[in-house]
């Protein structure tokens, strides 16, 4: 029973982290119909920026605020100067250019910070443990859980209650109409790309002390992220929540029961969902 609860919590924590990364991906796709392969690289950048901040300023919390903004700014630059230029060339071209960006970011990270994993200590205030059903559980993981839930609530608020959120949701369902009604869609695209990469950076910062910071972390989460966004339905935020939860649990319990083939399950789930419902669990259009 104890192992069950702990494993469930592990899955939940990883699932929430996945949600933070994939929500940005799915948001961007929903609006621009562009699958940003480089998305996970922005997540990695968040982790590395946070390492650098920690080294220079010595404060994790300052990094939590500043680093995602820097990452989001890079995302905006990417949209403005690369994606927008090839927008007329169609989705294939937009999709393909993000491959190049992925290479450039991943290799720059290796260039600047080396290939060795970098230690990012857990902030002192959260380095303790908490007792849960008789076992010790690291407080930092609970922080990830709590923090991600806050971000989820914030996103729900912005999307459902603010003018920006209404515009974004409208643009997801009919981009041309929103543009015709006088909204500056290129600007909104840029903003959404900024927010999406900001979310990825945020996830990267909090993931740093949890999963070690190393150059392979982008590709590792990228594939899981795809599984989440596709299973949940491209462009669906609710789908991202549900699928993140599913994948988190699947990987957590998969490792417990069938360690050897644990990674197969996520792909199997993705393939099965796509075969049965091509648009994903909560996706509308295929």
């Amino acid at each position, binding site marked *: 029973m104890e192992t069950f609860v702990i494993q469930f919590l592990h899955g939940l924590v990883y699932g929430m982290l996945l949600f933070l990364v994939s929500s940005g991906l799915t948001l961007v*796709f929903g609006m621009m*119909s562009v*699958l940003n392969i480089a998305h996970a690289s922005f997540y990695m950048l968040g982790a590395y920026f946070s390492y650098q901040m920690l080294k220079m300023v010595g404060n994790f919390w300052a990094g939590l605020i500043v680093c995602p903004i820097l990452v989001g700014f890079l995302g905006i630059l990417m949209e403005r100067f*690369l994606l927008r*230029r*090839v927008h007329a*060339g169609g*989705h*294939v*071209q937009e*999709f*393909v*250019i993000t*491959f*190049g*960006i*992925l*290479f*450039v970011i*991943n*290799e*720059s990270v*290796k*260039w600047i910070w080396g290939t060795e994993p970098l230690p990012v200590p857990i902030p002192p205030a959260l380095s303790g443990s908490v007792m849960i059903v008789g076992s010790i559980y690291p407080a930092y993981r609970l922080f990830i859980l709590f923090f991600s839930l806050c971000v989820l609530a914030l996103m729900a608020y912005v999307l459902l209650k603010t003018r920006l959120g209404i515009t974004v949701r409208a643009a997801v369902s009919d981009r041309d109409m929103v543009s015709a009604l006088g909204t500056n869609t290129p600007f909104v695209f840029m903003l959404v790309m900024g927010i999406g990469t900001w979310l990825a950076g945020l996830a990267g910062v909090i993931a740093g002390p949890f999963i070690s910071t190393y150059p392979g972390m982008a*590709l590792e989460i990228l*594939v899981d992220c*795809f*599984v989440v966004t*596709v299973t949940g339905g*491209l462009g669906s935020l609710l789908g991202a929540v549900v699928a993140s939860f599913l994948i988190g649990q699947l990987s957590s319990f998969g490792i417990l029961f069938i360690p*050897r*083939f644990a*990674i*197969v399950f996520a*792909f*199997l789930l*993705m*393939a099965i969902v*796509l*075969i049965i419902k*091509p*648009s994903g669990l909560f996706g509308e259009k*295929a």
Partner: protein
Amino acid sequence: MAGIGAGVLAILFPYILPKFQLRMVTEIIIMALFAMTWKMLLNEGGLFSFGHALYFGLGAYASVLGWLHIKGLSFMSGIFLGGLVAGLVGLILGAFLVRMSGTYFALLTLAFNQLIWAIVWKWRDVTGGDDGLGKFPKPDLLGISMKNPANFYYVSLIIVGICLFICWYFTRTPLGNVCVSIKSNEERAKFIGFNVNASKLILLTLTGFFSGISGALYAQFQEFIATSTIDLGMSTNVLFMAFIGGIGYFWGPLIGSGIFVYLSEYLSSFTDRWEFIFGLIFIVIVLFAPQGILGIVKRKK
């Protein structure tokens, strides 16, 4: 004229090029076939495959397992076995893939690729897992030793040449035209009365088969295979090759694979971070020459 010149040059390569260069040219030719199949999917069928290494890797593994476990399996039968297995898998997975298009198609191919990759990686007893498979026989072909690089080059050239000819011929057939019509407007093609799904399925099987052939050739070329033949990296490489050369041109994949193989070889000889430079070059190409190198050349004329 240019074609005849290139043909003569291709025949003379083993005599004029040093051994090291000949190896690279052989690799270019094998990879060109792989890139061609990827390009065919996109260009003829409008299908963007994000998991094309699946067929390449399956071809490589199937042929190697054949040479390892089937006694007396000849060179050509092994290559053919690789193509057959990859084509068969292309047919089976194609049954699910035909209903998809656009990003969803790309992602389902990715899912299948990752699924099979994970199985190949973890099923150590058969595939060798991370250690890969080596020390498999390299049978003679009609009494000619394949261990001689020049002979192997000629055989690869002939096999790839035949496959490329079939690919070219396919674009001329009515079926090839149906595929193009699906690409430009699937709804309309369906409405006119073409069997859209069957055409896509044939295209997927065909490209799977040829990818398998190139994978099997690649296995004999390297004399060793590992999960890198079937992983996401290989699926990305093929995309790079096809795009650099120019997806709108028949010879694009050949040019692309040539540039890719040479560039990766030379860049990696003087910097560890060659992929950085490569990524930059790729971004510049997509930005300024979306039709690839051949697109630039054709525009100049």
